[in-house]
């Protein structure tokens, strides 16, 4: 099998006395959409920030495209991208100006054409000349996604991409996510609280709780281990501290038990 695009091994992060990520290991295979699922504070964003190099792990290693992130961060970042509901593009610039700036940072060839392409893909071409700060929350999430797709990333990190979207647009974003995976073979790490997202988009799920991984596997595999009818009810039970026998899809031993 081809080597994984992303390999996180024994990742730990301590912020003083807080340990938001507690010894997790997982991998993202080429062309796969992997869901990172977990309640508020489970450590999803911290994990993503470590993969982006914005937060350095206390211990453990991250390999992306077979390279060590700690050593080859810039070369790796060129080939990936990220979109989060927590960040915005500068509100005082126009949409096309923001995309131009990031397009140049990522050295996107034929930038003007690529900008039109991504705007079309997210159906916001008509907003091209608008001031970014004047966009609605949903529009600005889609602009963030445009930025994240500019360089045709081989690895895309999406932190709650559908959080502020209405059902119609959320559905479109899911469709786009699947489409870029089909067309460009993009590997995607996708965090969300929205079970619909996870069930519809993700090939496999890493289920985090309090910094640890409880389950890894397809949604069906996870459910078969948990005596729950749906991911949603499993999620709620875990979040409320219900007793869960942790298990792992495909019979792999779980990292945390």
């Amino acid at each position, binding site marked *: 099998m081809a080597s994984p695009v992303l390999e996180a091994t024994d990742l730990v992060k301590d*912020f003083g006395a807080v340990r938001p990520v507690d010894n997790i290991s997982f991998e993202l295979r080429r062309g796969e959409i992997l869901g990172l699922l977990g309640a508020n504070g489970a450590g999803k*964003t911290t994990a993503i*920030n470590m993969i982006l190099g914005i937060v*350095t792990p206390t211990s453990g290693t991250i390999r992306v495209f077979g390279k060590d992130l700690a050593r080859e961060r*810039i*070369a790796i970042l060129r080939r990936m991208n990220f979109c989060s509901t*927590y960040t915005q*593009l500068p*509100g005082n*610039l126009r949409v096309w100006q923001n995309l131009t700036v990031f397009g140049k940072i990522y050295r996107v060839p034929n930038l003007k054409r690529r900008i039109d392409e991504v705007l079309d893909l997210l159906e916001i071409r008509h907003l091209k000349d608008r001031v970014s700060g004047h966009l609605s929350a949903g529009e600005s999430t889609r602009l963030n996604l445009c930025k994240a797709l500019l360089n045709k990333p081989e690895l895309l990190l999406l932190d709650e991409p559908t959080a502020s979207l209405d059902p119609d647009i959320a559905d479109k974003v899911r469709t786009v996510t699947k489409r870029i995976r089909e067309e460009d073979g993009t590997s995607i790490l996708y965090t969300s609280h929205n079970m619909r997202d996870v069930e519809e988009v993700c090939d496999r799920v890493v289920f985090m709780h309090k910094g640890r991984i409880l389950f890894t596997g397809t949604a069906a595999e996870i459910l078969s281990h948990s005596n729950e009818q749906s991911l949603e009810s499993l999620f709620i039970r875990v979040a409320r501290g219900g007793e869960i026998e942790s298990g792992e899809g495909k019979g792999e031993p779980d990292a945390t038990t």
Partner: protein
Amino acid sequence: MTFSTIQALVLRNLYLYTRTPVRLVELVFWPLVDLLVWGYLTVFLQKHTGDSFPYQITFLIGAVILWDILFRAQQGVALYFLEDVWSRNLLNVFSAPVTNADYLVSTYVIGFLRAAVTSLLLAVLAIVLYSFNLFELNWSLLPFVFNLLVFGWSLGMISTALIVRWGPAAETLAWAVPFFIQPFAAVYYPVASLPPAIQWISQWIPCSHIFEGMRDGLKDGVVSWNDLAMATGLNAVYLALAGWLFVRVMRTAREKGLLTKFVAQ
């Protein structure tokens, strides 16, 4: 270091100034107020002190212009970072393939452009309003001005490092840092007029040699190579130390998750 990245980061700031021209007011308004106040003070002093210290007095106008070069350069660097904080863009920038060097060099460029706009404007107005011609120093002016610019960059990096380390609460440092050193830097008065202990401090500040050298230059028309050499040497040390501090603080910020906290606040 990548040219296209630096170009993009500079472009982001140029868009900002063209998009919101009201930002230019800050580049023009405060320096202009300074020039008017110090300029008319000079006119007044000249009238009432006769010919005894004419050069020191007209130098007040030169000092205003030169101090502004330093201040705008420092602010160019520090505000550049704050713009990304204010617009919640920090994670986008630092999760992109941007090295510390790319980032710093683009802040220098912005600092330089800001200083250039303000100083040219002030220099021309000083000629028109007060017949004070800074360019009397000819080409020897350039190395002095360049030294001020570089010291402004160093102070800018120090301000940014403090803001990264201590969070948005430290934002006011972006404006305050140059004024910490101003009293020691002999901007408006000769070093000799300071008490000995402060004179001792002031010899370690690059820009005090610049202002001292400028005063001598305007008085005798002779370039003070000694002052220039001291300023350049000290500047090299400050620039290296400030760069080191910035890089170190960025590393700490990654360890403590400080960059992500900016987003949350």
